[in-house]
């Protein structure tokens, strides 16, 4: 489960480049508020992903303000695919456990 924030961030950044505030709002929106990452704790995750070259960043001025925009790299896309497969495996395992008649 520790990879969930990474998976969500990589999935959102696969579509377009975004900055931290935008990403927090987008996660709330796409998960129907089911997952709400702490506003501040998103940055360590983003910086960690950038450090391992899954993301790249650039400073961009929009409407008189500068923001650090993050975008996915080829390595990040590979990591997204890997995390997605892992997530489907876990999801399948939990679903099967919950539906199993052997589980009380």
């Amino acid at each position, binding site marked *: 489960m520790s990879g969930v924030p990474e998976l969500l961030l990589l999935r959102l950044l696969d579509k377009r480049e975004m*900055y*931290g*505030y935008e990403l*927090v709002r987008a996660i709330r929106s796409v998960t129907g508020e089911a997952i709400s990452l*702490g*506003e*501040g*704790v998103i*940055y*360590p*995750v983003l*910086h*960690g992903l950038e*450090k*391992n070259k899954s993301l790249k960043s650039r400073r961009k001025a929009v409407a008189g*303000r*500068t*923001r*650090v925009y993050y975008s996915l790299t080829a390595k990040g896309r590979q990591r997204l695919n890997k995390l997605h497969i892992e997530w489907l495996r876990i999801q399948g395992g939990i679903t099967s456990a919950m539906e199993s008649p052997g589980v009380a």
Partner: protein
Amino acid sequence: MSPDSDFQWLESRLLRAGVAPRHVRRTVTELREHLDDLVDAELATGCDLENAEESAMRELGSLESVVIAMRARPELLSWARRYPRVAIMVYPLTCLALLPVAPVFAGVAHASQIARWGLCMMIGALITGSMFLLLQLSILLS
């Protein structure tokens, strides 16, 4: 506490936790920008500035959780924090190696002042030399 003092606290806390200074600077900058966006969103709802700032800080969440999240990522820690044994060996050796070349670095850093000082000394020597020459000539001609 004001947002500024909160961010100063965060900066010193992250540095003491061993987070690399460039990640500390960047995290604090991005959090400040994030707070600005939160304040703007609150102001857009008709809130006054003071309440907007308070509400934005609440929404930003505990800064201690940022420290915990940063510390949990070894890749964001400083080199010395990740490899303390190597750092203990390398730092004193580096200091010893830098000690003899420190005056050179100081000279390079203050090159313009040293050049000015050299020029003044040369002009001074020329004036003194000329005066001695004039004195010598006056003795010879008298």
